[in-house]
C-alpha cells in the first residue's frame, strides 16, 4: 500500500466513523427516541455503595450495574442516542484495530457490518444497554490483550479470567472464545498450555462459584445477564453478531483477498464498504421505526408529566387502537372530567380493557394498572400494583414516585421518607425527591398539593376488600360509600355505556348530581335519549339536569339513516360515519 492509499484509507476511515456516528445519533434521537424513554423508565440507578454491592451478588452483576448507569443518562434522549451510537462506533473502531493487530491490514467490511448489526439490534426498544456494553467490554479487553500482552504476559489474562467472568458474567464467554481462536491461530509459545489452563481455570472457578459462592441457579450462572427479553427477542440476529465477533481472529486470518482487490475507479471496493453497509442498514433502520410503540411511549410520557389535555389532543390527532394507550387516555379523560363526553371518540375495548387493567403478576401490566385506582382514590390498591412490581423487578422512577405519592396521601410519612431517601440517590430525580421531602409530616402542604390533596380527599370512605380480578365491581363499592367521588362516577357510567346497559345508565342518573356534575355528559345523554325514545318512555326526571334538544334531533337523524340502511350493516356503518363518536354508533357497530 502506497502513501496515497494509506492517506485515503485513513480519511475514509475517519469519514465513515463520523458519518456512522452522526447518522446513528440522528436516527436514535429523531426516530427512535422512545427507546430511551422506555429503558430509562424500566430501572432506577442509585448512586450508593449498597446499590453497587447488591449487584455483586452474582457474576455479571457489575456489567448490569454499568449498564444501568448508562441507562440513567437516557433521561435525556439526545444523550442516550449519542451514548449508544458512540458505543457502536467504538466497537467498530476496536474491531478495525483488532484486524490491524492480527493482519497489519485495515478492514472495513467486518467492523462496519458488525456495527450495523449492533445498530439494527439497538433499534428494538427492548434491546438493553448491557448487550452492546458487554460486547464492547469483551472487544476492548481482547484488543488490549493481543496488542500489549504476549509471551509470559499472556498468563495474566489466562489467570484473571475468573475475575472477568465475575464482572461480566456470560458475556465473558465471548472473550474466552476470542482468546481461544487467537491462541490456536497464533505462533505464541506455549499456546496450548495457556489455552488448557484458561479453560481449566474457568471451569474450576465456575464449579466453586456454583457450589459454594453464589445462590443462583446453574442456568443463571451460565447465562446471566443475557436474556432473550433483554435483546428484544432478536435471537437469530444477536447470535449472528456474537458469532461474527467471536470468530474475528479466524475471519481476519482467512479474509477474502479477492474481495479486497476489486476496484471501482481509484477506490478499492473495501474502502467504500462502510458506506454501502450504512446505506443498506439505513434503509432497513427506517423500516424498523416502530410507530405503534413510538406513539404509545409518547402518550405514556405525557401521562407521567400529567399533561392530560395534550395527551387527549395527541390521541385525537393520531388515533390508536392500542389498549394501553386508550387506557391511559381514559384516565386523562376522567381526570379532566371528559370521560363520558369523549369516551367514544376513541377506540374502546368492550370488555373494559381500556378502562381498567386486570390484575396480572406477569408482564408489564403491574407497572400501569395502579393508575386507575390512584385516579379513583383507592390509594391502597394504587400502591399495591407498583409495590408488587418493585418486589419482583426492582425500582423504576415512576413506580417509586407512585409509592411515595400513595404513602404521602395516606399520611404514612415514615414509609414515604424511606422511598424519598431512595429517590434522592438517583441521578436525575433528586429535585423531585426534594419536592416530595418538603411534604413530609405536613398535612396542610399535602392538602394544598393539587394532586395529593385531591387524592386524599377522594380516598375511599369505607373499608372493603378490593376485587382486583373484577375492577368494575370496586366502582359500586366506592360509590356506595361515597357518591361524591366524581371519578368513580365517571368510570361507572363509562363501564355501563361500554356494556350497552341503557337501563343501568338511566337508573344511575341521580349519581350525576351527588358526584358534582353540572350537566349531563354527552355520551350519557345519548344513552338516555336512545333509551327513552326507543322504549317510548318519558325522560327520567332528575333535578337540575335537562336533556339538550340538539341531542334528540341528532338521535332522530341517526335513527332515520339507520332505518334507511338497516338491511345492510356495512352500508349503514359507512352512512353513519359522522356519528362514530356517539353512544348509538357504539351500540350498533362495536
Amino acid at each position: 500500500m502506497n502513501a496515497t492509499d494509506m492517506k485515503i484509507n485513513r480519511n475514509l476511515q475517519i469519514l465513515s466513523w463520523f458519518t456512522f456516528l452522526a447518522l446513528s445519533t440522528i436516527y436514535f434521537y429523531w426516530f427512535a427516541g422512545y427507546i430511551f424513554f422506555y429503558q430509562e423508565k424500566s430501572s432506577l440507578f442509585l448512586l450508593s455503595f449498597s446499590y453497587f454491592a447488591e449487584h455483586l451478588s452474582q457474576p455479571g452483576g457489575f456489567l448490569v450495574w454499568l449498564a444501568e448507569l448508562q441507562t440513567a443518562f437516557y433521561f435525556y434522549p439526545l444523550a442516550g442516542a449519542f451514548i449508544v451510537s458512540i458505543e457502536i462506533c467504538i466497537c467498530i473502531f476496536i474491531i478495525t484495530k483488532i484486524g490491524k493487530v492480527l493482519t497489519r491490514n485495515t478492514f472495513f467490511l467486518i467492523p462496519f457490518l458488525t456495527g450495523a448489526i449492533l445498530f439494527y439490534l439497538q433499534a428494538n426498544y427492548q434491546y438493553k444497554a448491557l448487550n452492546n456494553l458487554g460486547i464492547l467490554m469483551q472487544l476492548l479487553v481482547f484488543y488490549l490483550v493481543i496488542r500489549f500482552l504476549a509471551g509470559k504476559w499472556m498468563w495474566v489474562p489466562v489467570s484473571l479470567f475468573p475475575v472477568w467472568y465475575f464482572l461480566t458474567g456470560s458475556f465473558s464467554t465471548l472473550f474466552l472464545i476470542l482468546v481461544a481462536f487467537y491462541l490456536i491461530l497464533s505462533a505464541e509459545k506455549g499456546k496450548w498450555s495457556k489455552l488448557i489452563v484458561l479453560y481449566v481455570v474457568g471451569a474450576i472457578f465456575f464449579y466453586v462459584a456454583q457450589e459454594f459462592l453464589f445462590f443462583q441457579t446453574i442456568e443463571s450462572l451460565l447465562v446471566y445477564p443475557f436474556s432473550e427479553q433483554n435483546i428484544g427477542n432478536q435471537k437469530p440476529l444477536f447470535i449472528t453478531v456474537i458469532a461474527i465477533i467471536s470468530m474475528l481472529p479466524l475471519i481476519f486470518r482467512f479474509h477474502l483477498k479477492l474481495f479486497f482487490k476489486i476496484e471501482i475507479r481509484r477506490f478499492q471496493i473495501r474502502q467504500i464498504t462502510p458506506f454501502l453497509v450504512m446505506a443498506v442498514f439505513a434503509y432497513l433502520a427506517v423500516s424498523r421505526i416502530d410507530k405503534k410503540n413510538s406513539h404509545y411511549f409518547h402518550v405514556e410520557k405525557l401521562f407521567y408529566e400529567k399533561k392530560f389535555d395534550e395527551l387527549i389532543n395527541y390521541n385525537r390527532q393520531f388515533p390508536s387502537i392500542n389498549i394501553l394507550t386508550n387506557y391511559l387516555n381514559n384516565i386523562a379523560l376522567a381526570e379532566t372530567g371528559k370521560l363520558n363526553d369523549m369516551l367514544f371518540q376513541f377506540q374502546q375495548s368492550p370488555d373494559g380493557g381500556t378502562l381498567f387493567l386486570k390484575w396480572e403478576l406477569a408482564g408489564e401490566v403491574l407497572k400501569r394498572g395502579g393508575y386507575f385506582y390512584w385516579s379513583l382514590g383507592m390509594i391502597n390498591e394504587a400502591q399495591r400494583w407498583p409495590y408488587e412490581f418493585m418486589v419482583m423487578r426492582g425500582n423504576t422512577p415512576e413506580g417509586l414516585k407512585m409509592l411515595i405519592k400513595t404513602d404521602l396521601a395516606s399520611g404514612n410519612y415514615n414509609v414515604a421518607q424511606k422511598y424519598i431517601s431512595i429517590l434522592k440517590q438517583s441521578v436525575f430525580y433528586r429535585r423531585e425527591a426534594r419536592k416530595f421531602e418538603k411534604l413530609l409530616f405536613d398535612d396542610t402542604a399535602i392538602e394544598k398539593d393539587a394532586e395529593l390533596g385531591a387524592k386524599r380527599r377522594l380516598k375511599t370512605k369505607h373499608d372493603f376488600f378490593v376485587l382486583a380480578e373484577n375492577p368494575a365491581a370496586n366502582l359500586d363499592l366506592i360509590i356506595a360509600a361515597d357518591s361524591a367521588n366524581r371519578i368513580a362516577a365517571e368510570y361507572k357510567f363509562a363501564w355501563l355505556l361500554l356494556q350497552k346497559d341503557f337501563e343501568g345508565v338511566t337508573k344511575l342518573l341521580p349519581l350525576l348530581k351527588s358526584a358534582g356534575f353540572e350537566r349531563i355528559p354527552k355520551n350519557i345523554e345519548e344513552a338516555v335519549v336512545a333509551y327513552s325514545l326507543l322504549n317510548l318512555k318519558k325522560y327520567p326526571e332528575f333535578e337540575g339536569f335537562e336533556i339538550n334538544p340538539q341531542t334528540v334531533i341528532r338521535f332522530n337523524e341517526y335513527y332515520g339513516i339507520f332505518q334507511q340502511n338497516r338491511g345492510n350493516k356495512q352500508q349503514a356503518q359507512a352512512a353513519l360515519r359522522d356519528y362514530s363518536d356517539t353512544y348509538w354508533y357504539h351500540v350498533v357497530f362495536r
Partner: protein
Amino acid sequence: MRIRKITLLIILASFIAACSTKPNGNTAWINNRPVIGPDYSGLTIPINIAPLNFTIEENGDAFFVRILDEKGVSIEVSDKRGIIKIPEKKWKNLLRDNKSKKLFYQVYVKRGGEWSQFEPFSNTISDSPVAPYLYYRLLFPGYESWGEISIMQRSLESFEEKVVVQNNVVGQNCVNCHAVNLQNPDNFMFHMRGSRGGTYFVADGDLKKFNLKTKEMENSATYPRWHPSGKYVAFSSNKVVQQFHSLESKKIEVTDLASALVLYDLAKNEIMEIQVNQKRQFMDTYPEWSPAGDWLYFCRAAQIEKEYDYRDIKYNLYRVNFNPSNRTFGEVEMVFDAAALGKSVSFPRVSPNGKLLVFTLHDYGCFPVWHKEADLYSIKPDDFSVAKLEVNSDFSESYHSWSANGRWLVFSSKRGDGLSARPYISYVDENGVALKPFVLPQENPKFYNRFLKTFNIPEFAESEFSFTPGEIRKAARQEAIQPKWSDK
C-alpha cells in the same frame, strides 16, 4: 521572618482549634437528653452484644460522644454528621469489664464554634449473654409476589451476616417458615414453595426434602414447632385466604378458612393427626411445646361457616397433655379466653424454664403481622395470670422467640415505619418483666432508614450454620421423601 512564622503558627493553631472534633475547655449545658436513633438509651444490654451504633438527631456542626464506665474508662467517638460508630474491640473490652454495671453516655454538640453537652444517659450491662446468633427471613413485606427471599444468620456479637438459604438458588421459589429446635441449628427446617417445593430438614448433617402432605390431609403442613426431644415436629395445617383492604390502616387480611394440628415423627417418618378436634368444630393453629415436651399449646377458634365475618374470628389459647413415649394426647384445657375480652391470640412461645408464655394479642384472626394493635402479653402457666409486656408500641409486635437462658426475648416490631418489621431484643428479668427493647444494632446506624425489607421470624441460635448453594440445589433436586400417614 520570625514574626511571620509566629503569625502563621497562631493561624494554624486557631484553625486546628476551630476544626477540633473534641470539646476542650468550657462547655455549655443542655438541659435535656439528645435525640438519638435508634433509641439506645436506658437499656439493659447483653454483655456480648455488638456495638450499639447510633446517630445523634440534633442540629450541630460536629458531635462528640464519650462512653464511660463507673471507673472512668472511656471510649470516645466524634463525627461531623453525628454518626456514632463505636470501635468494636474497645466496645467488647468495655462490656467485658463492666458486667452488671452501668455505662454512661456523654453527648456533646458543637454549634457556632461552641461546644455544649447534653444531659447524659446510661445503659446497664447484663451478666446474661444473649445467644450469639440470630436467624431471620429477609423479604419485602409484600402481598402476593416475591423476589429474593433469604434466611439469614446474623452474629449478635458482631455485624457479620451471612446467607443460610436463598430462594434464587433454586429459581425464585418462595422460602418460608423456618424453625430451629431449642436454639440448636442441628434441628432446623424450612418450607419452600414452587417448582422445588417441599419441607427441608437438616437430618444427620444433611439437608433432605420431604413432602409433608399426605392424601389424608386436607391442607399442607404450615406453622412448625419442634418437640424439645427433636423427635417430633408439630405443625398446623392451614387453608388460608388473603384479601386486600381498600383503606390504608390495614392493608391485607389473612384468614384461615380451616386448620388442624398434625404431628410429624422424624424417626418413623410418620405423620398423624393430633386428635383434639375430631368433629372439626374448631380451627387449631400455632402449636408450641412446653420445655419438657409434656404440653402442647395452641390457638383455637370456632370453625367458620361459608358466610363469615373475618372480624368475628377469635382465637383462644389452649393446651393438651402429650406423652412422647406413645405419641398420645390427653384432654384439651383452655389457658386463656381471649374471646371473652373481644380479642384473639396467636404465636404462643414458652420460656425455656417454662415459667412464662408470651403470646400476641390482637383484635381478631390469627395473622397479627398486619394488625397495628397487636401487642405482646405474657401468661404464667402455673396460675394463668396474664400481663401486658412493657415492650409494646402503637404498631404490630409479633413473632417473638426466647434465648436459651430465658433472659432475652426477640420479637418483630413494625414501630419504625408501620410497614417493615425489625427485630427488637428485650431483657426479661426473673419476675417475668420485660425491659425496654432495643433494635438489632447495625454497623451503619442509618441502615433502617433506607432498608425496605422486613425481618421475619427472628429466632436465637447457639451456634452458627449455613448451607452451601450446592447443598441446597442437591437437596432440591432430590425426590421428596413421603411420610406415611398414621392413625395412631
